[in-house]
């Protein structure tokens, strides 16, 4: 966990409203899949939390969607400029070396953190099933990248413009994927459906944050079982065992 002025190496549009930025930064050596960085954007007060999508020798990659003023400003950043990143932050997806196959389920901008996870499982030569859900064909990204890693990739679109029409759950059914150890990240309804269907694995959550390091209590979520227990999404999370937190 440190503040660093990373150097933007590239910042390109890869799908509708979706950008990929490569950042050269020393903190990459401490990063684990599922963690995030907190990015300061000129003109805006609060840092923006963005998942680490890929960890490389000299830096890391983020994939982000333009949803508001901050991400719009980020999309306008040019290569060679510096960017103020704080990280790596939060918990990571644990790697279970004893498993032979895992199922990664991502929806929209929940897809990015799963990419590094897939990479690490593929290095261990495990079977990696990847199910990606998007709104429409134009929003799809990383299908080829996951395939290039040697994952089994299935895509669903809500409007049916590509792959299975419907949700990631529809795609899992359509392709009769039976692996029951899941890692997921995506919008709330998707996570709800996954929680109802699977008992094993991990989930990653979002929350409005201020500090991103566990000090302000902005981002808490209740424990599902212990009435009195709260977890900080930024510190104990964003990755939790499936069924751990109320959302």
């Amino acid at each position, binding site marked *: 966990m440190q503040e660093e002025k990373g150097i933007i190496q590239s910042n390109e549009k890869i799908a509708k409203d979706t950008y990929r930025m490569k950042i050269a930064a020393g903190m990459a050596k401490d990063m684990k899949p599922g963690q995030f960085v907190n990015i300061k954007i000129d003109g805006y007060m609060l840092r923006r939390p963005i998942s680490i999508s890929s960890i490389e020798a000299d830096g890391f990659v983020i994939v982000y969607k333009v949803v508001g003023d901050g991400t719009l400003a980020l999309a306008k950043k040019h290569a060679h400029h510096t960017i103020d990143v704080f990280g790596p932050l939060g918990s990571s997806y644990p790697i279970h070396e004893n498993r032979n196959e895992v199922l990664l389920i991502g929806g929209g901008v929940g897809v990015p953190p799963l990419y590094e996870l897939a990479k690490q499982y593929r290095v261990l030569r495990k079977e990696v099933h990847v199910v990606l859900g998007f709104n429409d064909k134009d929003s799809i990204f990383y299908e080829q990248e996951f395939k290039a890693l040697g994952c089994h990739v299935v895509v669903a679109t809500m409007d049916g413009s590509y792959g299975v029409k419907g949700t990631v759950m529809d795609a899992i059914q359509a392709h009769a994927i039976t692996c029951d150890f899941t890692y997921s990240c995506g919008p709330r309804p998707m996570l709800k459906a996954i929680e109802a269907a699977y008992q094993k694995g991990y989930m990653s959550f979002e929350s409005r944050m201020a500090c991103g390091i566990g*000090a302000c209590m*902005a981002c808490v979520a209740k424990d599902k079982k212990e009435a009195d227990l709260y977890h900080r999404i930024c510190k104990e999370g964003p990755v939790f065992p499936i069924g751990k937190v109320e959302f």
Partner: protein
Amino acid sequence: MDLHVKLPGLNLKNPIIPASGCFGFGREFAELYDLSLLGGIAIKSATPQKRFGNPTPRVAETPSGMLNAIGLQNPGVDVILEKELPWLAQFDTEIIANVAGASEEEYVEVIEKLNASQVVKAYELNISCPNVKHGGIGLGTTPELAAKVTKMAKAAANKPVYVKLSPNVTNIVEIAKAVEEAGADGLVMINTMMGMRLDLHTGKPILANVTGGLSGPAIKPVAIRMVYQVAQAVNIPIIGVGGITRAEDVLEFLYAGASAVEVGMQNFIDPYCCVKIIEELPKVLETYGVNSLQEAVGRSFK
């Protein structure tokens, strides 16, 4: 330059104190730097019982500021006494315990328990929180209520009591004077201003709690004005807070009449900000020809 400041109960090696609620109990920041560098630490508001606070979202961004409605989440005074304060004892810095409650009696309850701690050097009463007994209005919004809780706290406390004023009032001077008369040893000003943001998609408040407290540079001009007005009307020291992001802001608060300052939301933007400000302060004082902190305090009206 000597940055040392002596205030009731507090022997600050420098005038920089992270503000309550913006620093937790210091654990997260201790991973980043040595907390002994700080003048003091105002820990998160303590209540008699554990509190979970408000539903999320609890924060929203605003121009040059942010809104928060954490709702005083804290583990309760007993856990703070058992776990947090002994941990904080390892640092050479002055601990200010911020105290909150839903009634005057709760403030007293918290103070009576904290009296046992050697680590706590002073109390800071957060009188901005809505008060259950008085129909949900803050104790800080009338001189009578503010004076009453101050008196009760002073009677219970074995350490100096600072009162942290709410800026959401017509006449801050009246309240400051009432609190001084009730025995307060010092003032902390200001707490957040009540504000709100609406989601453009839904039209509904972004904060689950509907309204929240505005902090950050946006409120600095209001904080400076209030410190300036109150410093001329009372004889107890003031700890300034509201929108500080750099050493220049500290100097502005000193000029206005504050003897030390607290730094709030900037800790979220730049977690190292307090140490950076401490480092910069002597240089900034020099740039502006100020030879000592004391010399700057209240210069605006002297």
